[in-house]
């Protein structure tokens, strides 16, 4: 089989049961009907099987919080000027 782009010879490889043709000249890849979908499906399965990412390291020990506490204790508003006023008022 010849590459449709540069007309060099294409070689057939088998990857996870899918036939892939790769051009020996321009390295382009030719997929038959349905092969892209098969690759996508296999990629998705691989991602699901991958171990979960390790939790982000905590810079401080976890502090107990009440049941009604905010879901995230990031202190994101600490430098907001409105909190600056709140820190200093009754």
């Amino acid at each position, binding site marked *: 089989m010849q590459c449709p782009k540069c007309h060099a010879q294409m070689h057939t490889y088998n990857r996870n049961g899918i036939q892939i043709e790769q051009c020996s000249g321009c390295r382009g890849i030719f997929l038959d009907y349905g092969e892209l979908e098969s690759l996508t499906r296999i990629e998705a399965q691989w991602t699901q099987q991958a171990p979960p990412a390790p939790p982000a390291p905590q810079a401080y020990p976890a502090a107990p919080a009440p*049941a009604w506490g*905010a879901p995230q204790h990031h202190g994101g508003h600490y430098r907001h000027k409105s*909190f600056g006023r*709140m820190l200093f008022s009754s």
Partner: protein
Amino acid sequence: MTTAVVRALGALAHRAAHAHPDDPCACPPPTVLADRADGTVVRSGAVVAKAHASGTDTPGLLTRLTLADDPRLTGILLAPLVPHPAAPSAALDGRPVTLWPHGRPVDPGDPDAAPWEEAAALLAGLHRTPAPPSLVLPPMRGPAKAALAVARMRAARPADPATAPVLEAWRRLPAWARDEAAAPARRSRFLCHGDLHLGQLVRHPAPHGPWLLIDVDDAGLGDPAWDLARPAAWYAAGILPPEVWLRFLEAYRAAGGPAVRAEGDPWPELDVPARALTVQTAALAFAKSATEERTPDEVELAMIDACARIASLPPELGARNPS
């Protein structure tokens, strides 16, 4: 009216700052440190004069001044220059006036420099000091202030459905936290500040002296967890960073403060007061934003959102500490 009050306070402070007040002097003009309905504060040189709110409980104020002047609280509470209110005057609308030494406040522009550990240690010292037996101290005014904030919100936004979560979170508090009953006896006999925030600390003598607590207007006997509840509420709402909250909490524990258990989860003690402060802060946010004809900003919304979570708790979680 405010200008007359400010001028009268400036004159009082200036007179108190000089042994011979009628001699010529090069004092800078008096400066207004605060001017709100609950207190007008004017400084002249080394002296600060404060006009307390009209309608202040004057006998209660005298007891609180005596407390601040008590040698057992030296190094914790700033002592007044004169341990009794000045004679009421027409220029001051009959508001009681007290005189204090000037101290250097926390820099509002530099929250990282805020003395959280020192504030915690001062509170622990206050809470550990037995109430002077010679004083008949009134209750700490924390719950009363929370109730006033809710009343302010109701007046500023009558029938505004946005306030419903705040009102529901308020309804779920035990009666004592809404100022509708006495606090549980086992936790109600501690000396408390009653209104802790970063504006309640000064270095005295200014500018490098030790930190002291000021403003005894709300001080009295009560549950000491109330004095930790404002930072606790900010932390729970996700505003105050956990590391700052832990610095404050651990410094309080290290100083032997009795408001929370010595180790482990402090929330059984903090839960009710922190919920009350969450409601108070959210209610004031609704009241102030209505007066300023704006919607609550993102920080205020964080406190209002916390009320919504309190209001939606299953009852068994919402009444974790019903006493």
